[in-house]
């Protein structure tokens, strides 16, 4: 198996890791959910401020590897302003991207900047790092009270 580290650690990912966007808490009435990856101990919290059907703001705080931090940061940028349904759909598409299950170039292109995380699909043990934030987003949108876990 030949994998190129540069495909995984693209500059956009390193940038989001170093200076994560929307890295802050949202005051109530924004709802939030906690995500936890028990295998590696990564934890993060995602806040969503939903106005009607629109995701007005998304933020996160947490500790984790570059992949999980960059994924969370890029997620907040990608989801802000979308409808609740579109955000949920994007989460599903993202999961396909990082597990290498996207059908074609068109599908991939629809993910925009998030495509930078496609390299994760070559690293099966790192997929959970990338998807933790998105699982947690879905939980926050659903207003779930239970912590979201990758296990």
């Amino acid at each position, binding site marked *: *198996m030949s*994998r190129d580290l540069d495909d995984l650690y693209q500059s956009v990912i390193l940038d989001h890791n170093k200076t994560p966007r929307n890295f802050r808490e949202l005051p109530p009435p924004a709802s939030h959910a906690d995500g936890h990856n028990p295998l*590696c*101990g990564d*934890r993060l919290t995602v806040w969503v401020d939903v106005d009607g059907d629109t995701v007005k703001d998304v933020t996160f705080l947490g500790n*984790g590897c*570059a992949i999980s931090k960059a994924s969370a940061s890029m997620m907040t940028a990608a989801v802000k302003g979308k409808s609740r349904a579109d955000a949920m759909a994007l989460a599903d598409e993202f999961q396909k991207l990082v597990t290498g299950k996207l059908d074609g170039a068109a599908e991939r292109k629809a993910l925009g900047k998030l495509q930078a995380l496609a390299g994760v699909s070559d690293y099966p043990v*790192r997929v959970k*790092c990338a998807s933790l934030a998105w699982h947690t987003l879905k939980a926050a949108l659903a207003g779930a009270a239970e912590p979201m876990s990758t296990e």
Partner: protein
Amino acid sequence: MAVDSGEAGTRASAEGSELTVPATSASPLARVPAQALDVAAIRRDFPILSRQVNGKPLVYLDNAATGQRPLAVIEAVRRSMAEENANIHRGVHYLSEVATLEYDAVREDAREFLNAPASHEVIFVRGTTEGINLVAQSYGRSTLRPGDEILLTTMEHHSNIVPWQIVAGQTGAVVRAIPITDAGEVDLDAYRKLLSPRTRIVGVVHISNALGTINPVAEMTRLAHEVGAVVVVDGAQAAPHMAVDVQALGCDFYACSSHKMFGPTGVGMLWGRSTLLESMPPWQGGGDMIHTVSFSGTTFAPLPAKFEAGTPAIAEVIGLGAAIRYLRGVGFDAIGAWEHELLVRATEAVREVPGIRLVGTAREKAGVLAFTLAGVHPHDLGTILDADGVAIRAGHHCAQPVMERFGVHATARASFAFYNTLEEIDVLVRGLHRAREVFA
């Protein structure tokens, strides 16, 4: 089918192809000084060490997670499965007799390995985890009363914490943590203060998997015995790296795992003082652990069968025997000296890398080097090193209280075995520099 390919394979088959109890006399190799340890020859005994990972020679520095298997072990398991497979302790036919003899002979190897007084005190279990659970559920559950205390060091692996929390919940006993210092050593003054007549059980890890600390088990045992507590030792990390002598330690129970000591997975040893084991109720019921069974009542078999219900991991136990004899052949004097050299050299080299913080700097340390690298999460470091074929562990190492104590979420951990080389340390250090560049 030809099995004796290569000299190590020949050695393996020469050790156990006959239906006899293997010789137990120490190999003359054991007295060879460390500098004479022929690492290149030893590496040839481990087929996996010559493979490549991601196009690079494998640099295996995850020995605290599991050791690699020498040909002697691989061949012993193969032979058991291919030529001698039968159930044990119940057949009158030839194969059952062979399998029974081979299996039972390992108990004497295990006794000698641990310097236990008697082989019937050695119980074959699934591993260290099951050994500790056995003690907790049999000894602990039958003796603990509300308010009794179980003392555990803060550096215990989850497998020497959770079984005690479970039995504490069942009995009303209380689990208390013995503090550790900034260097990662047991705070013996605090330990002395925690000990009281309420202390019934002290659990201590012989060598910490997360810090590398070698604990003063003999001294801790002496203090525990003064208040009448029994001492349970998690020997998972010690068994592959140092000569274990349960009589010199003075402890009451000692558990270790085959796979960490270069044997197969799925099997381990629990040694217990026979007076304790005799008094303990069986833990699991089933075949092989009974004397007679009737619906009006059942009587149990004597040790060790009382604690070995059901068909055991026969081939794996036989493989464990081969691992013990292999380790005896290399010798712990040589192993200990070489691993210490590796630890000293790796510590010096890794410390030079800017941004490194070592986690675990005890005076008495085994070949475990845990650290963090500023700006690089341990998981990313693990992935970057893996690209160079370097296998390390990243995470909390099933020792979350240790992470909490040192204020980190995770560490990277390189852990050594006697087959590692100084060149491999160079590859590790180059990888650390590369990770710094990637995340600069």
